[in-house]
């Protein structure tokens, strides 16, 4: 054990003698976390909603009130423009969608519900269906809000009741009994609107259409509190990846330079040498995780929901990548080939695992494919400690998968090394 520690210390000494290594193992992950943390967090002075073009062809009082409602939404940034310019902006990718309010949009109450002719048109990028659906929801919400405002206008309501009454009275396809019921309702509603005093009208018709009781409860957040809770686990993965590749290359280097053979000549076995390498990789990964954790805690006050779970996850993730390190060192016989192949393999794993693009933005088939990536399970496990707040039982599956991947890669790597040395 003492010799394994000497071997590990030697590797750490070599690692820290190279400024390039220090940057890629510590600096790069920290910069990654900071950069994307700030990007995802946005800026307080700038609106961060979806930017859409809005074409008002209706120019009515209703369309103006509708547009101001959309504009007041935090989820949207409305840019008024002409139809051609709006379509062109979407086509060239400058804006994600254009909303066109056609003539007659605000003239009649029914236009909002009619299926015959749509008075609102959405032109959007077909590759961004998820955002398009989200936009439709926001538009519908604004439409109902605009409609609710109309109900507070007593004259507008009485005019419309008059129109609806005439329509029912003149309709041939409604039987007499039904027609009588509707007409009776419209007459009674019109009398109510006419006779009710202003105070009562304001009390019962103004404001929300539905009366909700609200109770302030300090709720439990399901998602992350800050964007750094997402970027720091990702940054930790990048740091651990850097360590895995660096130490894999150092094994190849020992073999090409002859120091591996020289060590094998001593009274220690191959297991000692590789054990030392694994220990050094493990210690460095622990340094990386601690460095990022302390930085995130001190500078960004990063909340960690479940510290013991986070530590357990970090240990399992590191063990997994120590195992992968042993496999990567067999991918090439020179430092260049092993490093290139190792980074290529880990890049694919990282892309699939959500280390570059969050999984939520991936198509469903790619999300299914991501199950094979240890990066996905690593990020999931670290996030579980940082903000997901899973129970230990829920964590068993990802942690067991990580340990299984690490152990398999380690054993496979050792067997390949043995075969290559024969």
């Amino acid at each position, binding site marked *: 054990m003492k010799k394994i520690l000497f071997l590990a210390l030697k590797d750490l*000494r070599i690692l820290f003698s190279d400024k390039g290594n220090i940057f890629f193992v510590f600096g790069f992950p920290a910069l990654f976390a900071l950069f994307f943390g700030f990007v995802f967090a946005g800026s307080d002075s700038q609106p961060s909603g979806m930017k859409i073009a809005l074409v008002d062809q209706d120019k009515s009082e209703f369309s103006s009130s509708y547009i101001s409602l959309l504009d007041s939404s935090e989820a949207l940034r409305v840019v008024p423009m002409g139809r051609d310019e709006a379509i062109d902006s979407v086509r060239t990718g400058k804006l994600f969608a254009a909303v066109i309010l056609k003539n007659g949009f605000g003239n009649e109450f029914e236009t909002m519900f009619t299926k015959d002719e749509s008075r609102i048109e959405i032109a959007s990028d077909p590759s961004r269906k998820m955002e398009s659906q989200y936009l439709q929801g926001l538009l519908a919400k604004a439409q109902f809000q605009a409609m609710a405002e109309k109900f507070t206008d007593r004259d507008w309501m009485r005019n419309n009741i008059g129109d609806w009454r005439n329509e029912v009275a003149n309709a041939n396809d409604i039987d007499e009994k039904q027609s009588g019921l509707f007409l009776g309702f419209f007459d009674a509603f019109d009398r109510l609107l006419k006779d009710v005093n202003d105070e009562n009208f304001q009390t019962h018709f103004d404001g929300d259409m539905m009366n909700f009781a609200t109770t302030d409860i300090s709720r439990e957040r399901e998602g992350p509190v800050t964007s750094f809770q997402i970027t720091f686990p990702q940054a930790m993965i990048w740091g651990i990846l850097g360590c895995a590749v660096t130490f894999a290359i150092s094994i190849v280097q020992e073999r090409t*330079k002859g120091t591996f*053979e020289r060590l*094998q*000549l001593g*009274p220690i076995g191959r297991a000692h040498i590789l054990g030392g390498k694994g220990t050094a990789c493990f210690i460095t990964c622990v340094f990386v995780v601690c460095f990022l954790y302390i930085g995130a805690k001190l500078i960004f006050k990063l909340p960690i929901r479940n510290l013991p779970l986070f530590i357990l996850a970090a240990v399992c993730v590191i063990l997994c990548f120590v195992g992968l390190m042993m496999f990567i060192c067999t991918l090439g016989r020179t430092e260049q080939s092993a490093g290139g192949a190792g980074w290529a393999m880990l890049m694919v794993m990282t892309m699939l695992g959500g280390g570059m693009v969050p999984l939520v933005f991936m198509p469903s088939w790619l999300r299914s494919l991501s199950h094979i990536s240890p990066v996905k399970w690593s990020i999931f496990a670290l996030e579980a400690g940082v903000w997901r707040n899973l129970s230990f039982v829920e964590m068993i599956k990802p942690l067991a998968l990580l340990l299984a991947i690490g152990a398999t890669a380690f054993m496979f790597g050792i067997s390949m090394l043995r075969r290559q040395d024969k």
Partner: protein
Amino acid sequence: MIKVENLKKRFGKTVALDDVSFEAMKGEIFGLLGPNGAGKTTAIKLLCGLLKADSGTITLDGRTNPRLVEVRMSLGMVPQALAIYEELSGRENLQFFGRMYGLKGQYLKKRVKDCLELAGLSERSRERAGNYSGGMKRRLNMVCSFLHEPPILLLDEPTVGVDPQSRNLIFETIENMKRQGRTIIYTTHYMEEAQRLCDRVAILDHGRIMDIDSVENLITRHGGPSHIEAELEEKLTEPDKIRRLIDENIRFEETKIKFQTTKPLEALAKLNKSGVRFSSLKIQTANLEDVFLKLTGRRLRD
């Protein structure tokens, strides 16, 4: 001390060693001389257990398994490659390898100091090995194997690519090790090195040992006669007497004589005794290069 019997090793279809047998005595420097690809490094790797022989036996100090920890502790191998950590200083390299051999405390300190002195690196011991010259790296590479004071040393071309000064220092170190009674196996493709250092030499080619003996005996046996050309102070009056004394084929050209002999010193002594006085003398003796040419039909550096 070291006994190798009928050693065979193949790499796929390539025969690296074919029925190799030799023996090196305690305190002897035994050379393996051959061109690149002759099988010298394979032999060294088999001796120290880095490779496993297809057949044959190796006996090191009475033990037949070089993988045993006791056997490995008795071996010091200087690899052909510069197997040192360039990121560490010379001192740190020695400390690290010393610890790997279980050295510690004052003994480790003493051995590191001794080895640094032996390699002529004491003054630059705290510098990164990467900043050393090629010769300094070679010397460090060599003394890293002496740290644990092994009785058997296996040196695989330890002077490749070094300057003459470092080469001499390495030779002196090896001769010093021999004086201490260590058994040394020395591989080289430089016949001058084998001639200077080795008590006995095995001529190795294509994995086979062509002959083993002392350098002198090998030259005598395979090198052919020495060519002697002498300028005399005065013309010989009785050339037939000299012919009978030395060789029937001796040639006389005014005051010059030319002849070939396998025993040049003996012949010159005879001439001197019979009253012949030389004004100049040129002796061209055979060397291991000639031996190799005779045995294999090609030159060492072909």
